[in-house]
């Protein structure tokens, strides 16, 4: 008996140790090569493989949708996943292990920016190929990236600064509408504003400016919340931000010149994958720097004990204003991108439902953590799409999952962890060699 247990425990350790031994020495760049390989495999061989496995089409979302709709196809789907995703990754990752490590070491000595760019380039390549296979994938990918930005921006306020702000859909709306108004007014012939005022070809170059304008509009809106927040405590801030949400929504519904309740449509197609990806990367980088800076520490100080922070020369007023405006800015930019992905905005998209979604993502993923926000946004988004075939039961499963996470990890899946790109990109030493 004793030895059986002992053996079982050893086996478990054995599996974990074996996984460690396998995966440990692989640097991040190795995994990225693997992903790229899998994407290439799918691009060239996907159709044929799915045909011979009897699947009606290439499974779009890792087979979730296919499997939930027709459970008979489970074996075929698993076969597809193994052949197209798992095998190429494993093969490439292992065979390229040494060269990848050397490359990682080489990049490690260069400035972080260059290393980051190389990694990002690889990652983007994989994503681009993957999304190329289906417009639906493209849509889901873009919306997920926007969700990441939204989650990060609210994490700055709710996680790092410890407030409970319910106004994010409002910021998103301000950004979406401002950016849309600019692009429709200046660069498109449309029903809302008539003919374009400037040349249409200039549009894509001015788009980032439109996004920034959206962000600034949202930041100005944040002042409406920041100023009353000086005198109030957390709970009152919650209702101030809620009031803000109702006001923005109602305001837009009444402004005929931006379409009122009908909303605006036919924004030009400026939210291409490279654009959304670049903005997201920029967002992650800037926010990460922000929260690791002195300002970030000030945020935490204000959260933990405002009086003490004040006593320690932290200018709490300035901190609050800057944080609100900063978070709102990125929410506005995300909103602008959102408007141009869906190519339709209406006030209804920015109400309580949106608030529930955003809160779910940030608390699920983890407070006070960049990694957490990314994980939360990706999980909830992909789950939301993958569970579509379950129709209304989707909205029982997702909340249940969140409750479970709240019960077992109340601050979210990955909370209070720093995001250190340089460490992630380091070359890994081979475990065997170390002995």
């Amino acid at each position, binding site marked *: 008996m004793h030895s059986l247990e002992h053996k079982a425990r050893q086996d478990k350790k054995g599996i974990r140790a074996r996984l460690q031994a396998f995966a440990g020495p692989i640097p991040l760049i190795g995994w990225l090569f693997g992903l790229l390989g899998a994407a290439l495999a799918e691009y060239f061989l996907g159709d044929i493989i799915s045909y011979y496995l009897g699947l009606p089409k290439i499974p779009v979302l890792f087979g979730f949708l296919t499997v939930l709709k027709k459970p008979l196809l489970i074996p075929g789907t698993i076969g597809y996943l193994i052949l197209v995703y798992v095998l190429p990754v494993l093969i490439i990752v292992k065979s390229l292990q040494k060269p990848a490590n050397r490359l990682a070491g080489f990049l490690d000595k260069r400035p972080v920016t260059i290393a980051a760019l190389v990694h990002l380039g690889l990652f983007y390549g994989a994503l681009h190929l993957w999304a190329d296979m289906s417009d639906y994938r493209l849509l889901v990918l873009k919306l997920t990236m926007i969700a990441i930005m939204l989650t990060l921006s609210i994490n700055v306020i709710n996680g790092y600064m410890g407030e409970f702000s319910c106004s994010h859909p409002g910021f998103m709306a301000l950004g979406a509408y401002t950016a849309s108004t600019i692009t429709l007014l200046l660069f498109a012939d449309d029903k809302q504003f008539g003919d374009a005022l400037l040349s249409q070809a200039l549009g894509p170059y001015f788009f980032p400016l439109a996004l920034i304008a959206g962000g600034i509009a949202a930041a100005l809106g944040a002042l409406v919340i920041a100023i009353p927040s000086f*005198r109030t405590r957390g*709970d009152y801030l919650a*209702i101030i931000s809620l*009031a803000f949400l109702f006001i923005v929504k*109602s305001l837009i519904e009444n402004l005929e010149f931006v379409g009122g309740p009908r909303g605006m449509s036919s924004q030009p197609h400026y939210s291409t994958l490279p654009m959304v990806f670049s903005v997201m990367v920029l967002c992650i980088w800037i926010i990460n720097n922000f929260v690791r800076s002195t300002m970030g520490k000030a945020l935490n100080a204000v959260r933990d004990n405002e009086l003490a922070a004040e006593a320690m020369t932290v200018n709490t007023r300035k901190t609050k204003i800057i944080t609100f405006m900063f978070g709102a800015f990125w929410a506005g930019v995300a909103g602008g991108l959102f408007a141009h992905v869906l190519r339709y905005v209406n006030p209804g998209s920015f109400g*309580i439902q949106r608030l529930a979604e955003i809160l779910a993502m940030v608390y699920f993923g983890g407070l006070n953590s960049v990694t957490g926000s990314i994980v939360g946004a990706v999980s909830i988004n992909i789950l939301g799409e993958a569970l579509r075939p379950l129709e209304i039961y989707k909205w029982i499963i997702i*909340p249940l999952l*969140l409750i479970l996470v709240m019960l077992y990890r109340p601050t979210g899946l990955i909370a209070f962890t720093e995001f250190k790109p340089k460490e992630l990109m380091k070359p890994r030493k081979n475990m065997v060699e170390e002995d």
Partner: protein
Amino acid sequence: MDLFLQNIVNGLQWGSFYALIALGYSMVYSILMLFNFAHGDVFMVGSYIGFGVATALLGFVAMTGIPLPGWLILILTILFSMFFTSFVGMFIERVGYRPLRDAPRASAAITGLMIGIILETGNLAILGARRLSFPQLIESATYQFGGVYVTNKKILIVGVSLGLMYLLHRFIQKSKWGMAMRAMSFDFQAVPLMGVSINKIAPLTFAIGSALASAAGILYGLAYPVLDPYMGILLGWKAFVAAILGGRGSILGAALAGFLLGFIEIFVAWIFPSTLRDVIAYSIILLILTFRPHGFFGQAHSTQLRL
């Protein structure tokens, strides 16, 4: 002048709902320092339970032929629903909030939000897509005072609401449990040290809050007889605003703020073009909060009310 009086009546009725629901929020918030975002959906559940009870009673009358007058059925409905819904509230406390007692407040808030969504979707899944029509338990009668129209229903709603609030007030002020609750709202940690278990107070608080929400649900069903699974969302969030506006630790404040919110919405819709109602009403709320940041009767608390 007529319109002014008419709108006072309208506002009293509409505000009653906000007040009753805000009371539940305020109690949980003052005593247990929690936001219970499932409360709006408890209101919805209470309304549906009321529908069930009323239908059952009406069926009972039909089957046995015992003529129960409408008002009696109404009273029974309210009592039974309050009783059953209080269990719903206690269940939510036990399952969703008790395990998270030591966790940050925000996590509990999110849990509540999710429980609310499950209640809504569960309702949709079980009862399907159609809307339910709350049974007409009382014949509608409209009285006219000059140019002002008041239905018996409106009087009933305001009357019952005020009555319940009064009962609650007596309970909190005079009973032992009420005293314990008031003590907890002053100092959360001290009360258990005095031998009163949180595990007894918490369910009680939730039970009372949910019972009030249920009463609100039935009165709401009387006034607006169309029930749907999402009816509690907007009302819930607005009542939440009212609860905090009233100030922490003040039950009276929450009720007052609820009525005030109702009045603001009704009067703004009267004076300004009704499309601007939300914009103006909530701007007014923002202004109030800027000048009275602790709400109407809130105590400026020394303990951090951070989430």
